[in-house]
């Protein structure tokens, strides 16, 4: 079915102005001050309430009696323990270990020399060489016996004692000697670093 074309008739200009003024709220308020105002728009921010966390009290007695504890603390004095840091006699065994280590080093050098000499000799030239070899074997046997003795000493000292120890040897002048030197007006041989500590 054919439709008739819609014909637009021109709207008179005064009538159009009145219609626009009625559509615009500001314009309406301007024209009619007594008209009710539109409700104000308030922006809101939506947040989720955090679930309450379990609040656990701790050290209640201490906190409830803090005055008592504070008063007791004021009466306490902490002093370093006497004897801490003072030198004590070194176990003579630790000093003997140093000597044993030196003996082990010497025996190792001797065995190395014997072995080097034996390798350099391809054939025994005479009965004298055999005699010298026998004496060297005796020397090696003595070194082995000494080593067994040292191991016996170590085993006797540490068998059943699973402990690691660090021995530190400090050397220096006693403080009394330092004061004595200053009293006599002589400079200390150790220099200014020691003098400041007196």
């Amino acid at each position, binding site marked *: 079915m054919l439709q008739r074309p819609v014909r637009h008739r021109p709207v008179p200009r005064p009538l159009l102005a009145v219609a626009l003024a009625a559509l615009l709220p500001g314009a309406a308020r301007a024209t009619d001050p007594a008209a009710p105002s539109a409700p104000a728009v308030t922006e809101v921010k939506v947040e989720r309430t955090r679930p309450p966390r379990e609040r656990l*009290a*701790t*050290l209640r*007695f*201490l906190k409830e009696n803090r005055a008592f*504890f504070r008063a007791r603390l004021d009466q*306490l004095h*902490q002093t370093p323990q006497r004897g801490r840091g003072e030198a004590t006699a070194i176990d003579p065994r630790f000093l003997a270990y140093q000597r044993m280590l030196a003996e082990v080093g010497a025996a190792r050098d001797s065995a190395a020399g014997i072995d080097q000499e034996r390798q350099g000799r391809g054939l025994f030239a005479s009965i004298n060489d055999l005699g010298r070899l026998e004496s060297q074997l005796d020397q090696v046997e003595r070194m082995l016996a000494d080593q067994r003795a040292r191991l016996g000493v170590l085993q006797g000292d540490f068998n059943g004692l699973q402990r690691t120890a660090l021995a530190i040897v400090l050397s220096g002048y006693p403080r009394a000697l330092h004061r004595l030197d200053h009293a006599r007006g002589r400079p200390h041989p150790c220099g200014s670093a020691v003098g400041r500590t007196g």
Partner: protein
Amino acid sequence: MSHVKAGIDRRGRAAAPIAGSALAAALWLAALPAGVAGARDHSPFPAGAGVDGSAAAARIWAPDAFLVYVENDEDVDDHGSASRWGYLYFSPSLQKSRVYSLRDGAIVVAEDLEMKFEAPPLAAEWVDSDAALAAADERAGRAFCREHHGRLSQMLLSRGMFESDDPDATTWTVIYTSPHAASLFVLVDAAHGAVRRTWRG
């Protein structure tokens, strides 16, 4: 949660029956009283069992921190165990004290102490709370509870706080309270587990 997710169609609308179930479940959970939710059983343990855990945290807080005070944060049972203990550490470098409260092997409270508490360090070796409570009960605690309807209230491990004659000693202080009588204090030597003295106050 997976059920709630399964009830949402492609357009983002929740299917009514499943949404209703989820809502009901949510309301049921929300309606649970806090006491029921918090009534989960926690394993009681003696005070010594929490030292390592608290010390590890304290060392992270301050490498020079040392233990100065222990107190039960929950009730102590007949065997000297509690479900939560508080461990107080002091750091000389920070000049601060920090408390760690442990429960079920985990730190549930870690906070700085408001007051300054530069207490001396506890001894490295001390008898645990079970032995200390046994000694206190045997000496006077059990009789006090029987006669005065009392109960064990607190167990405190400290050094120099309660023993004037020997402030260097680390001691357990076991406190019994009663609604009808003055509290009973039993001081137990933490080194040997022997009762040093008792008093009422």
